[in-house]
């Protein structure tokens, strides 16, 4: 699943900000259409959040929620999004696996910014 790391990190960011809507809709989708629509909405919202996030001196971006600093990851690259949507078209189970990973703890500490 490392090929969809950017999408997983983006969804995990929403989970950390207590917005489970996108990860739930992608994880529970029964056909590809809801995944496509949800990913479009998630990317739209994510771009807005990212652009208005605080930028630290080292260039890392973060938002504050309940007094905690939540790093904002990079926007998933176009190739990754395309590959993910193609994979979902042939196997909807990919969407569930990506959503499940987004709900799990990351294997290493993630930092925000333009990674």
């Amino acid at each position, binding site marked *: 699943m490392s090929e969809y790391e950017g999408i997983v990190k983006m969804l995990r960011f929403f989970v950390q900000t207590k*917005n489970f*809507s996108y990860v739930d809709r992608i994880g529970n989708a029964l*056909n590809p*259409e*809801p995944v496509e*629509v949800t990913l479009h*909405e998630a990317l*739209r*919202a994510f*771009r*807005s*959040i990212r*652009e*208005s996030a605080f930028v630290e001196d080292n260039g890392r971006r973060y938002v504050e929620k309940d007094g905690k600093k939540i790093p904002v990851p990079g926007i998933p690259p176009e190739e990754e999004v395309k590959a993910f949507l193609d994979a979902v078209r042939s196997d909807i189970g990919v969407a569930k696996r990506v959503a499940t990973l987004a709900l799990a703890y990351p294997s290493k500490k993630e930092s925000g910014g333009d990674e």
Partner: protein
Amino acid sequence: MFLSVGVRFEANVEALNMVETAGNYSKHRRVPYLVEEDGKLKTVYVPALSGESLAHAYQEHLVREALSLNLPVCDDCRRNEFYKSMNKVHLKKKVNPIPDDPKKIEVAIVQSCVIEDVGGFLYAEKPPVRRSSAFQVSYALPVKSVALFATSEPQLHARHAQMDSSSKKGNASEQMIYYVETGTALYGFTFNLDLNAIGVSAITSEPILNENEIKARREAALKALFRMLSSAQFGAKLSRFFPVGGITEVAVAVTEHPFVVTSPIYDDYIARTERRLKVLEGLGEKYLFTVATGEKVPEEALKEAMDYLKEQGAF
């Protein structure tokens, strides 16, 4: 007596049910919808209004109608804040000390508030007490046959602020643009009202109130529905996005026992409802079915149903 209403309304460029905002973009509620195209089923995302939104509007009208009939409405509901005696803090305003018996808690709430009587409540403490709503409302969804023509479209707006150089911070602009996603569709929704549940305990099924009070509350419940549909005062953002259009069709069924009109999202819902009622009639069920399409206006159909209910002694 049970009232079921199917409503079709045309709404162009409406923002009746907005959900989250992403930056300067506020989104309309959308739901996945199954439609048939060339013999194949496909999922499309269409603008929708939640039942919660419609229920809130109905209860706001119920507050007004209840007060105009001098019926009790609790302080929270008067402010259109429908906490529904959800915890001790809110229940104590109605009964203090709070009884241990769920039946007594229900009686105290129903006696002191028409909205919680008709709209139900959930007291989530020990002991928990739950009362189902006497009215039910569906989501408003685009009519199936034209669902593919439904759209949601962001509209650009600008907000201005007058700023001199001292109040200007960073690169803040004097003009902020924002987008409001508007929906356009022919919507259909269903509204049901179980008149027999008003003023009656959900625990014991025994009347909590006297007959006159129950009848007055039924009248308020019916008038609130009439007012909500007639005034089109439901949904959000009416101040600048009042939907262009209006109610195109209404089908009202009044039965002795629960019966729900066929959903108005189907084109043949009136004929199907009529056929279903005919079957029930064969089983001894008395009913009234009236529709407002074409010449008859929705208010006439609703009035007819109310007159019938009055004749039947419902209020």
